């Protein structure tokens, strides 16, 4: 830690002394006092040495110094400390000032007056910088540097030089304006070139500015080597008088590339240090290349050139430093975003529709498992899209190209190792001023979620099967009890009746009584059956007009997850202009659902062919509408066709065998017919046909088969699974 760091505010110091501040307060105060004293001593010594150096920085035979470091040391000290301590450090410089100036044999009153004017410059500079830079001295930013250049190295010297010149005029009788000019330019150059490095090193603003071992250190070394060699030669070059005047500016012209190098690449600290180096070289070489009439003008010329060069260079270095910091911040932010995208399995992309220019974030490359060097094209993406999803993929592309609307869809990828990924893509379309379409969106890898959803859905479905079986079991037990009671009576009565008739003599009265009871119990059993039938047969009073296509779409939507789980490919062919039918919408949907699920179940064991399921609506003969469900499943033997619709006949391990039975009773209630037929190829087709509602036709009578949007959507969902 630099000794100058001790000048920085007490609050930051205190925090470095440990957490239990209260207990250590005395210790902290002692140490702080020590630090203030050390800083004051440092300033005193610095001021003295600065003055000694200042005397050396002359271009003989001219007497004025090119630079006067003590002023810069005072300004830097004040910039680095809180205003309440300024008086301490100003007073600390007084002994050094007295020693220096008295040794120069100046009268005491002038020595004091010059101290006051020096202090005034430092105070003015520090106060103005504090005021306009928001309290800090951020020399790593353009704003900080520009504020400093304007306030501390222009306005403050400009004003204080009047006091300086005044003091000299009053006490030494020197030419006021000539002296003002000498002091002004010396002070400006001093502040401009000396204060920034002192403040930056003193306040620790060297992070990313000072070279670290490695290439950056090499660059600093190279710069200074070149600067010293070239500067050493050019400033010590003393051509004969009469050389072209243009050559008088040769040194600074030759040295400029080095200064630009420092400003652009190495930051404000390197820039001000490079300028200081140039100053030292120029003074060492006696500013040999300046050929002006008087030595004083030679000094002035050097000062003005250095000021004019340094001020913009410092500003430039501040801008470049900010740019580097912004770039680092952007990189950090990008890294942050990239990490977030990685964790969230979500990447972002943009797609210029007119040029098909696609930009991917790192995570999208990772999802697609492509090398980031590969240029992204739609064709390249197409090589990863799951073959079954390719039509969907290109359909989405075409749609997005056409309407420019936001889109959201899911599709699968098949990776090179044949594993499958599920992607969820969301994109927002925007148009620029020229109306060119661009999509910006996100791609999320939802494989894990989808797999767990499938597992969950499977469990839920199994649970539903169990629940259904359980409730049917309970229903069966209840029905059995209701029927068993009267049956028991019938058998017992009939047995008693037989016994009574077989007796000798026959008990005819008893037999008659038991026969009567047999009839009564038979009626009772029959009543149970009637009630049971009533459970399945609803009254016709709740009939309504039903659009069978619409009802089918709803059922398809309901059963999607079950069909997806079974990997069934559903194809819906719903006839346009299908007449309405009359009936109970919910009951008809139960039948459709039952047929769909039966078809799906029939294909559970199918692995050698697509589990193709076609649901079709069409007009039937005799003003009727037919719905058929065709599967590619195991089918059935022709001799079993009649048994299919019997209650409790089932080919399924988990089935109760009442679905088709109930379905047939529902369709018959609708004055319709439900039947089954084996396919010409594999599987079976179950169909029902119901009469149309009188006069209820939804559209034209055309028989065209189309894929309606809703069903197309459903199919997409299915293929996405």
């Amino acid at each position, binding site marked *: 830690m630099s000794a100058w760091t001790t000048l920085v505010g007490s609050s930051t110091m205190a925090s470095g002394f440990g957490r239990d501040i209260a207990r250590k307060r005395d210790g902290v105060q002692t140490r702080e006092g020590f630090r203030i004293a050390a800083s004051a001593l440092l300033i005193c010594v610095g001021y003295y040495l600065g003055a000694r150096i200042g005397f050396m920085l002359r271009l003989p035979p001219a007497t004025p110094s090119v630079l006067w470091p003590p002023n810069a040391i005072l300004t830097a000290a004040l910039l680095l400390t809180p205003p309440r301590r300024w008086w301490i450090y100003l007073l600390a410089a007084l002994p050094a000032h007295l020693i220096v100036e008295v040794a120069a044999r100046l009268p005491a009153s002038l020595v004091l007056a010059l101290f006051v004017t020096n202090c005034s410059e430092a105070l003015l500079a520090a106060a103005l910088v504090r005021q306009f830079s928001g309290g800090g001295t951020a020399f790593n930013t353009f704003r900080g540097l520009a504020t400093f250049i304007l306030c501390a190295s222009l306005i403050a010297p400009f004003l204080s030089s009047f006091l300086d010149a005044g003091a000299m005029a009053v006490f030494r009788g020197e030419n006021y304006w000539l002296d003002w000019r000498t002091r002004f330019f010396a002070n400006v150059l001093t502040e401009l070139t000396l204060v920034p490095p002192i403040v930056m090193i003193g306040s620790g603003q060297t992070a990313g500015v000072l070279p670290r071992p490695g290439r950056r250190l090499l660059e600093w070394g190279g710069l200074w080597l070149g600067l010293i060699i070239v500067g050493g030669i050019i400033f010590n070059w003393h051509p004969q008088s009469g050389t072209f005047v243009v050559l008088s500016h040769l040194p600074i012209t030759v040295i400029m590339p080095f200064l630009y190098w420092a400003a652009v690449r190495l930051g404000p600290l390197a820039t001000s240090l490079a300028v200081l180096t140039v100053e030292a070289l120029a003074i060492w070489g006696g500013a040999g290349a300046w050929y002006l009439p008087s030595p004083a003008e030679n000094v002035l010329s050097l000062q003005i050139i250095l000021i004019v060069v340094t001020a913009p260079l410092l500003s430039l270095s501040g801008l470049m430093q900010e740019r580097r910091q912004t770039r680092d911040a952007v990189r950090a932010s990008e890294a942050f975003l990239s990490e977030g995208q990685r964790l969230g399995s979500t990447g972002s992309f943009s797609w210029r529709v007119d040029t098909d220019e696609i930009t991917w974030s790192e995570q999208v490359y990772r999802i697609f498992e492509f090398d980031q060097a590969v240029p992204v094209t739609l064709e390249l993406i197409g090589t990863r899209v799951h073959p079954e999803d390719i039509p969907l993929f290109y359909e989405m592309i075409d749609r997005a190209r056409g309407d420019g609307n936001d889109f959201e869809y899911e599709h699968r990828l098949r990776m090179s190792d044949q594993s499958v990924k599920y992607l969820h893509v969301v994109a927002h379309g925007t148009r620029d001023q020229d109306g060119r379409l661009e999509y910006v969106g996100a791609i999320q890898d939802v494989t894990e979620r989808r797999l767990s959803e499938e597992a969950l859905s499977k469990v839920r479905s199994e649970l539903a099967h169990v629940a259904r079986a359980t409730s049917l079991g309970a229903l069966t*037990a209840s029905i*059995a*009890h209701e029927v*068993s*009671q*009267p*049956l*028991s*009576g*019938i*058998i*017992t*009565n009939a*047995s*008693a009746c037989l*016994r*009574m008739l077989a*007796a000798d003599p026959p008990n005819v009265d*008893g037999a008659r*009584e*038991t026969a009567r*009871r047999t009839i*009564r*119990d038979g009626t*009772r059993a029959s009543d149970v059956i009637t009630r049971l039938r009533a459970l399945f047969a609803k009254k016709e009073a709740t009939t309504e007009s039903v659009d069978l296509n619409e009802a089918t779409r709803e059922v398809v939507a309901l059963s999607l997850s079950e069909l997806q789980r079974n990997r069934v490919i559903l194809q819906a062919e719903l006839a346009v202009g299908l007449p309405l039918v009359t009936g109970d919408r919910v009951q008809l949907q139960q039948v459709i659902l039952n047929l769909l699920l039966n078809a799906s179940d029939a294909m559970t064991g199918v692995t050698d062919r697509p589990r193709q399921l076609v649901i079709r609506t069409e007009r039937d003969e005799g003003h009727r509408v037919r719905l058929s469900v065709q599967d590619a499943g195991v089918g059935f033997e022709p001799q079993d066709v009649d048994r299919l619709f019997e209650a409790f006949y089932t080919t399924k391990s988990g089935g109760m065998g009442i679905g088709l039975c109930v379905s047939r009773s529902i369709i018959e209630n609708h004055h319709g017919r439900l039947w089954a037929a084996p396919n010409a190829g594999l599987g079976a087709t179950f169909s029902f046909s119901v009469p149309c509602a009188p006069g209820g036709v939804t559209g034209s009578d055309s028989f065209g088969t189309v894929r309606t949007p809703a069903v197309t959507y459903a199919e997409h969902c299915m293929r996405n699974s």
Partner: protein
Amino acid sequence: MVARSLVSIVDDDESVRESLPDLLREFGFTVQAFSSAEEFLASDCVAQTRCLILDIAMPGMSGPELQRELTRRMHRIPIVFITAHGDGAVRPRSLERSAVQCLLKPFSETALIEALNAALRA
């Protein structure tokens, strides 16, 4: 066959209370029918009953509860359970508690007589 043995029937179903006594009387038993377990316990037939035909599911005291109550009162009457619930879970439990037979309604005349005879031999 033991003639004139008292067989008591406890069942909430009226058709059983009507038909079963008639049949059993044809086989020579003396029969008393009760519509509930409470009614049976309150009667003076408990001590004379040689065999009890007992419905399992009844409102109030159930068949197995009556069985426990009789055991508590030291009446070791052989029991033939009858039930319309085809629930297999009820059967083994009842049999463990010294019930000789359990008949599922509807039962045949033959099954009934076999069960009764087995109970009476016990």
